[in-house]
């Protein structure tokens, strides 16, 4: 599947309305906000449709997955939104991650645990809250809200240390553009960021650059580590390749149209996470040009003054922190 799906589901007491934007959505938050109730409603509607007393509006089938036989059931589900409650131990397994890779389904997973085997976006982690829209009516209306907005908290005017999740082209780029009084460290993957922050940047002015498209499993412990600390700033673009595409270096209406609404072009069957799509898009768009891109080794043309400035400029506030 690709694109976004708005779902309305409810009974005579409780209604939910939300939009699912990517292949993996995480639901978490306080107890008693209605996460399990939502999954139960989806299950009851799937079993008995309107005869369940539940109304559900969705352009694709919605259903649930649970229990020991999940791996037998899942291959039979296609082009659906699959809801999974937190009491399923298989969520943490490599087998589950392998099973939903290349899947035509979207998944809505209730869990407070970070799931490092799954590449979900920081921006697709939601809580549920009561919507004020219909206050006073008999029915309670619930909506999703985004839990993490890490870049809103940028209060630094300068940084000394830059921790980069990437160990290839992204790391090469940032290492090459900073001046000598700044240190750039690769965490060699998303799971290394927490440790590198503890070792190097915890108390100093530090900028963390990571791929927001797949950093979801890490964001909670990072946000809690830097809570109330103005000395650490997160910059989480979708990916380094997305940043290059956003910089305007690559001409053409096609790229701009895609960036305006990437989800409409990203099939879950092909791309487990958006970062891989943006890499493929950049490679494709720069093939046979002086900006020919390879993830493993940075094309030095990206370090020419004009190109460098365009990319740093696309980083907004984080770019200023690096270049000043």
């Amino acid at each position: 599947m690709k694109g976004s799906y708005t779902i309305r589901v409810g009974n005579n007491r409780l209604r939910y309305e939300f939009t699912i934007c990517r292949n993996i959505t995480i639901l978490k938050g306080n107890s008693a906000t209605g996460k399990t109730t939502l999954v139960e409603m989806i299950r009851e509607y799937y079993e008995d449709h309107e005869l369940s007393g539940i109304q559900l509006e969705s352009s694709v089938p919605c259903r649930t997955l649970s229990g020991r036989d999940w791996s037998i059931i899942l291959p039979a589900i296609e082009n659906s939104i699959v809801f999974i409650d937190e009491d399923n131990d298989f969520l943490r397994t490599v087998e589950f991650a392998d099973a939903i890779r290349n899947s035509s389904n979207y998944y809505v997973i209730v869990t407070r645990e970070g799931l490092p085997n799954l590449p979900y976006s920081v921006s697709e982690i939601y809580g549920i809250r009561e919507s004020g829209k219909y206050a006073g009516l008999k029915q309670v209306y619930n909506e999703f809200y985004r839990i993490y907005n890490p870049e809103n908290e940028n209060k630094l005017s300068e940084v000394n240390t830059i921790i980069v999740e990437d160990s290839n082209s992204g790391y090469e780029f940032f290492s090459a553009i900073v001046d000598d009084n700044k240190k750039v460290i690769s965490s060699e993957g998303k799971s290394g960021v927490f440790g590198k922050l503890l070792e190097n940047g915890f108390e100093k002015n530090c900028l963390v650059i990571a791929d927001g498209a797949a950093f979801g499993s890490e964001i909670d412990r990072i946000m809690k580590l830097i809570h109330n600390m103005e000395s650490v700033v997160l910059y989480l673009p979708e990916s380094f390749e997305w940043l290059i595409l956003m910089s305007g270096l690559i001409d053409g209406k096609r790229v701009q149209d895609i960036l305006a609404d990437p989800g409409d072009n990203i099939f879950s069957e092909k791309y487990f996470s958006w970062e891989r799509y943006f890499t493929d898009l950049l490679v494709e768009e720069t093939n046979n040009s002086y900006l020919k891109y390879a993830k493993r080794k940075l094309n030095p043309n990206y370090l020419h003054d004009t190109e460098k400035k365009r990319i740093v400029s696309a980083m907004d506030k984080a770019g200023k922190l690096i270049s000043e």
Partner: protein
Amino acid sequence: MLKIIFGECAGVVTNPAVYFKNTYEDEWITDEMSRNMILDIDKSTVISERIIESPVLGGITPKELSGGVKTLILINNCPDKIFNASACGDNCAKWLLEMGKNKDITINLRHLMDFGNGDFEVYIQNTDQVVHNMRELVPIAGTIVR
């Protein structure tokens, strides 16, 4: 004291809601601490052992309580068991700390629960350390769970 085992751990009740449904006793529901937890977290009022008034769902039974409250009630009433307290949201944290003031309880956490901005005393069994606030807890627990 509240004692925490972070990460996966053998012998833990991983699905407290199911365990609650099959083992709860009527008197657990009307116990004063349970009443207070149900009111605070689920915003619901215990009418009797088997009837609870929910502002959203109407009259419900204990089986329809939130997963967080069920887990708290189990932790309070089954000291010989260790429960997966990642079924509890951050709004349950103060109740875990409260229980830990009166007796030793051991819980399992598979995520970084937020115990708030205040001081507390929590024993991390994995590393044999006592921590006193989130600033001390997160660097230790964050290396074990996400």
